[in-house]
């Protein structure tokens, strides 16, 4: 059973400079207990995809078409009151910087109890007990004392744990995590990843992990979706995508990783820079940076194609499965 189904989602921003197509025709699904890594560089639309699912796109942004179903229920066009009932209960989000999302003038217990009471009629005492449990679950020592602290009294890693604890309070079916460990140190990041991994496998919560870091999702995710300029260019199982990328962009990203390279050997870089969403080239958005690009790439947007092994990619000249084509020679 799929917890989340996104079909042909398009979220555009109507700015004075024109329409910015931040998300343009994105489709994917997440099954119960599954971890999906949503990977892309800045401006690829990965965060806006997350916000769209949460119903958090503010004007001038707008979901212009497509469908988002959470546990089978359509949420695009749902009135705000209905959306509020879903948010936190069915699907929760963890943001990159918990200092921005926790209220600095409210104690942790106030914020946590508020999150419980918004969805359930329980006594304050029971809510407090659940808040304490949640803090213990994410590995915060002396949970009952820490409940009465303010956000600034926590370190960065601890604050992120609090944010995770709040997301877990109402046992949502899906958690969307938007670069939650990017600002953290390596050892702290590893602690958070371990907690998340354990919690999700215990509770069967599905997880969308939004990140720019392929190495983090390699260890965490079951499937990976790679985004570029508002579209998912490749989607598949972790092993398939990382070992045999179909899309030249995925291949380029993997080649750019220093952890993949021999010491001192030049990295296999992608030329050029990420395009501005306001001035996308016609055809495939990656074509100006792609060394396999041909005439058709500059004219026609590639359709989403299915490949064996439950994989998808948007490319006129997929790197594998077409070995006879002249362009996969460079392998």
């Amino acid at each position: 059973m799929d917890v989340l189904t996104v079909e042909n989602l398009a979220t555009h921003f109507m700015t004075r400079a024109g329409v910015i197509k931040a998300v343009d025709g994105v489709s994917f699904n997440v099954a119960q207990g599954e971890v999906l890594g949503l990977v892309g560089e800045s401006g690829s639309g990965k965060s806006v995809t997350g916000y769209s699912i949460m119903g958090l796109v503010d004007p001038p942004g707008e979901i212009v078409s497509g469908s988002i179903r959470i546990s089978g229920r359509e949420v695009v066009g749902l009135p705000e009151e209905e959306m509020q009932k879903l948010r936190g209960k069915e699907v929760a989000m963890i943001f990159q910087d918990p200092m921005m999302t926790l209220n600095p003038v409210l104690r942790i217990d106030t914020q946590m109890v508020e999150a419980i009471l918004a969805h359930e009629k329980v006594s304050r005492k029971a809510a407090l007990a659940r808040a304490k449990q949640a803090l213990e679950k994410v590995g915060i020592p002396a949970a009952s004392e820490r409940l009465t602290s303010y956000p600034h009294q926590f370190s960065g890693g601890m604050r992120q744990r609090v944010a995770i604890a709040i997301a877990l309070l109402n046992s949502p079916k899906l958690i969307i995590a938007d670069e939650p460990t990017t600002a953290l140190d390596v050892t702290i990041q590893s602690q958070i990843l371990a907690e998340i991994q354990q919690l999700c496998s215990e509770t069967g919560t599905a997880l969308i992990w939004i990140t720019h870091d392929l190495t983090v999702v390699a260890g965490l995710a079951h499937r990976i979706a790679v985004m570029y300029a508002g579209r998912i260019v490749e989607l598949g199982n972790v092993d398939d995508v990382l070992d045999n990328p179909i899309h030249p962009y995925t291949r380029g990203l993997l080649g750019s990783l220093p952890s993949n390279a021999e010491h001192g050997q030049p990295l296999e870089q992608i030329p050029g820079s990420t395009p501005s969403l306001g001035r996308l080239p016609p055809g495939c958005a990656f074509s100006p940076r792609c060394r396999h690009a041909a005439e058709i790439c500059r004219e026609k947007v590639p359709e989403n194609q299915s490949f064996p092994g439950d994989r998808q990619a948007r490319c006129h000249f997929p790197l594998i499965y077409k070995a006879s084509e002249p362009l996969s020679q460079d392998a």
Partner: protein
Amino acid sequence: MSTEPIISLQDVSMRFITPVDTAGKIANLLGAKNKPQVVHAVNEVSLDVFPGEVVGLVGESGCGKSTLGRIVAGIYSPTAGKIYYEGKDLQSLPAAERAHHTLAVQMIFQDPMASLNPRMRVLDIVGEAPVCHGIVTRSQMADHVAQTLERVGLDPEYMRRYPHQFSGGQRARIGIARALAVNPKFLVCDESVAALDVSIQAQVLNLFMRLRQELNLTYLFISHDLSVVRYLSDRVVIMYLGRVVESAPAKLLFQSPNHPYSQALLENVPSLKNRKKRFATIKGEIPSPLNPPSGCHFHPRCPKAGPRCKVEQPVLRELSSQHFSACHLNDGGVQ
């Protein structure tokens, strides 16, 4: 590799002191015991960097790696210890000669937007220093800037633009061009690729490697990203709370780290090769440098710590050629 280090630090320490404020002083008159707060950002660090070498300086936030970088670049004067540039003690040199030496060491910062003056054109950002130091005359400035920009892969046409008109990767290149404009021998790169997207990061890393060959540069590369350091460095130095805990040739360190902190750090680096792995954890938080733990700073988080670690500070010992580690385990155990 020649035997004389281009830069040599000896027992360099840096303390930052926050004095007691007025309210605190008044409270002291009434019997409170407010004391100035002292942060030992860098604590008796010795480091040699040899010509042509790339030294990676690694550590988590608050370990003093940026402060050490700034000391090397001459932005901070250390509160204790000596810096030798090509064998000469910098503090004892006359000002003019010192300026000549410090010019050979340039720094590239993390956030190019914060380190480039938004109201100056690229021409002036890159050209100001070489004119000021008499490397080129004002009339030669444009040519010199054009050459430097070409060297870092920017179109000299863009010389009259302002920093905000460039993308993140291009701004990083401007930062590099500014450092190169005074013909340095030594570059201190402080998290210079951390803010860049992966594909742009790869371009800039390739640029660093190319410049190293073309200009015979020496790097001190400061980063929290071990995969970048592993890729670039010949030698790696790992710091924890102001002290060096281990230093070794890169290959050796990544194969067989000796210090428990280095081991934990390396284990925790996410890698493409570890699929769906169980993330191992090292317990505890990074302690505040305001109030570091006694003895070995790492002992509260160390899985192998014993009673000795709480009281005695371990010293750096040479395990094999060029491989130093500061842990009691190498020296009689932790009991």
